[in-house]
C-alpha cells in the first residue's frame, strides 16, 4: 500500500523555488533516506508531508491531505523535527502524561520501558537533560506511538557517535517492522546506509535519484585502479571518477552501459558497491557540473 504519493509538488518562498515539481511515491514498510545538500528542499518536502506548510500540487499521505487534515493525520504519523523541539520547560512525567492524554495510539507503558533503559529521571525538566538524553526521550515517546509513518528530519544532528548509533539501533530493533514506514534525512549518510531500504537524492527542489538499496547494489559499482590502468577503464565510460591516495576510483552505472559488468571490471582492481555518499557526489556532480555534457550524451 502507498503511504505517500506526491505529484508535481511545488513550493515557492518569494523568489526561491524550494520544491520544483516533486513526484514521490513511498510504499509501506520502507525506510527511505532523503539525501540532499543544504537548501535542497528536504525539510520543505517533509514539512509538506507533515502538513506544516501549504504547497501546490497533489499530495496524499495515508490517503489524507496533510495541509487540511493535519490533526487527524498525526494519529498515524509521528515526526522528530530535530533534536531541539521538545519544550524546554516540560518535565518528563508531564510529557508522558500529556502525550498519553492527547494521543490515541500512545502506549505509556512502552515509553516507560524505553526510558527505564536510560538515565533520564521522571521529574527532570527537558532543559536539564543533555542533548543526547533529549533525543533518547523524544525517541522513547515516538517509539511508544503505534504510528504507520515516522518522519525523522536530522534526528541525530549534534549528537555524539554513541548516541547516534544507539538511536538507529533502537529504531531498527525496537520499532521498525514491515508494516511501518520511516523517512529519514541526515547528513551522516554513511551511518544509515545499512539501515535504509530506499534512497532518494534531492537537489534544488527536484528528486534527482530514486532507487532501492537492492537495485543500488546490483546496478552501481566502483572500481579502484592504479594510474597506469585508468585510461583503459575510462574507455568504459564511468559516470564519475575521483582520486584517493594516488589511485582512481571510477563509478559505473551498469544500466546505462552496454556489456559492462562486474567481470569486465574485475581485472583492473577491487570492485565493490559504492557508498551512498560517493554515489551522491557522483549523481550531484554530474547534474551540476556536466549537465550540458550529459544532455549531449543523452541525445547521442
Amino acid at each position: 500500500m502507498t503511504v505517500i504519493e506526491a505529484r508535481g509538488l511545488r513550493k515557492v518562498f518569494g523568489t526561491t523555488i524550494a520544491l520544483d515539481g516533486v513526484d514521490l511515491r513511498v510504499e509501506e514498510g520502507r525506510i527511505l533516506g532523503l539525501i540532499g545538500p543544504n537548501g535542497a528542499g528536504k525539510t520543505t518536502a517533509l514539512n509538506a508531508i507533515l502538513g506544516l506548510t501549504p504547497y501546490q500540487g497533489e499530495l496524499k499521505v495515508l490517503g489524507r491531505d496533510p495541509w487540511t487534515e493535519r490533526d487527524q493525520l498525526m494519529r498515524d504519523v509521528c515526526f522528530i523535527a530535530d533534536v531541539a523541539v521538545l519544550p524546554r520547560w516540560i518535565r518528563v512525567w508531564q510529557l508522558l502524561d500529556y502525550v498519553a492524554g492527547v494521543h490515541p495510539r500512545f502506549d505509556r507503558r512502552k515509553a516507560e520501558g524505553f526510558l527505564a533503559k536510560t538515565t533520564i529521571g521522571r521529574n527532570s525538566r527537558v532543559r536539564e537533560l543533555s542533548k543526547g538524553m533529549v533525543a533518547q526521550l523524544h525517541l522513547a515517546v515516538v517509539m511508544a506511538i503505534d504510528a504507520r509513518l515516522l518522519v525523522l528530519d536530522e534526528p541525530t544532528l549534534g549528537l555524539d557517535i554513541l548516541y547516534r548509533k544507539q538511536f538507529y539501533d533502537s529504531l531498527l530493533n525496537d520499532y521498525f517492522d514491515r508494516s511501518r514506514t520511516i523517512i529519514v534525512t541526515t547528513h551522516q549518510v554513511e551511518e544509515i546506509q545499512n539501515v535504509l531500504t530506499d534512497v532518494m537524492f534531492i537537489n534544488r527542489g527536484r528528486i534527482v535519484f530514486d532507487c532501492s538499496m537492492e537495485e543500488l547494489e546490483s546496478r552501481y559499482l566502483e572500481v579502484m585502479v592504479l594510474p597506469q590502468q585508468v585510461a583503459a577503464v575510462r574507455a568504459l565510460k564511468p559516470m564519475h571518477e575521483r582520486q584517493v591516495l594516488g589511485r582512481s576510483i571510477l563509478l559505473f552505472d551498469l544500466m546505462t552501459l552496454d556489456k559492462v559488468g562486474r567481470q569486465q571490471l574485475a581485472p583492473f582492481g577491487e570492485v565493490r558497491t559504492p557508498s551512498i555518499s560517493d554515489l551522491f557526489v557522483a549523481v550531484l556532480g554530474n547534474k551540476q557540473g556536466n549537465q550540458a555534457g550529459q544532455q549531449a550524451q543523452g541525445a547521442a
Partner: protein
Amino acid sequence: MNTQSNAMPESPLESQVIAPAVISATRLMYWSVRRELWESRSIYIAPLAAAAVFLFGFLISTIHLPAKMRAALALDPEKQHAAIAMPYDYVAGLIMGAAVIVAVFYCLDALHGERRDRSILFWKSLPVSDLTTVLSKASIPLVVLQLLSFAIIVATQWIMLLLSSAVLLGSGVSVAALWTQLSLFQTSVMLLYHLVTVHALWYAPIYGWLLLVSGWARRAAFLWAVLPVAAICVVEKIAFNTSHFATMLGGRLAGGAEAVAVPGGFPIDPMMQLTPGKFLSSPGLWIGLVVFAAFLAAAVRLRRYREPI
C-alpha cells in the same frame, strides 16, 4: 515508582485494551489546558502571591483592629459598612489586578513562545488541531484565571473574616457588626458576576487581540500589540481632530458599565445593582464578542501557517 505512576494506575491496564482511534474533544481540551498551566505557572502563582502579600499586611494590621472596630461602630450605618468592607474590596481588587496582568502577559506569549523555542514543531506532531490549541490558550484568561481569581478572593476574604473575628473575640469587641456588615456569600455572587461580565465577556476582544498579535509578531509582541492601537488614535486625532477610537478603547478598558447600575443611595440590597438584562442587551458586548471571535479565527489560521522563528 513515583507519584506519577500512582496517579495513573489505570494506564498499564488501558494499554492492554485496543486504544480508541479518536480522543474526545473535551479530553483534548482538558490536556491542552493542563499543559498551559504546567508551562505558565504564573497563572496561579501570581494571584496566590497577591493574596499572600495582602494577608501578611492584613495580619499585621489586626493589631489596630479592635480600636478601628470601636471607631467604626460609632459611625452611621452607611459609613460603618464602608469602613468595615474596605479591606475586603481591596483584596478583591488586588487579586483581580494581578490576574489581569498575568492574563495580558500570558496572551502575549501564548502563541509566540512556542515558535521562539521551536516547540511548535513538537506540538504540531501530535493529533491536536490548531483550533483546540488556540481555544485552550484563550480559555486561560477567559475561564481559568477568572475561576481561579474567584476561588482565591473568596478564600482570602474568609480567612480575613475568621482572623478578624478571632482577634475581636480575643479583645472583647463585638463581632456582630463585622458579620452583619459583611455578607460574604452575597459579595461572592457579585464578585462572580463581575468576573464573568467584565473580566471575561467584556474584556474578551482585548485578550483575542493579544493572542492574535502573539501569533503574528516575530518579536516584540508587546510593542506590536500596543503601538498600532496608539498609532490609530494619533492619526485619527491629527487627521480628523476626533477621538472616537480612543473613546471606544477607553470604554472597553473601563469595563462594561451596563453590567451594574450606579446606586442612587445606600443600597438596601446590593443584588439590585446587578443588571444582567441590560448588560446582555448592550450592543457593546456583542460587537466585542464578534470582534473576539474574528481575532481568534485569525489566530487559528495564523498558527496553521506559522513556523518557528
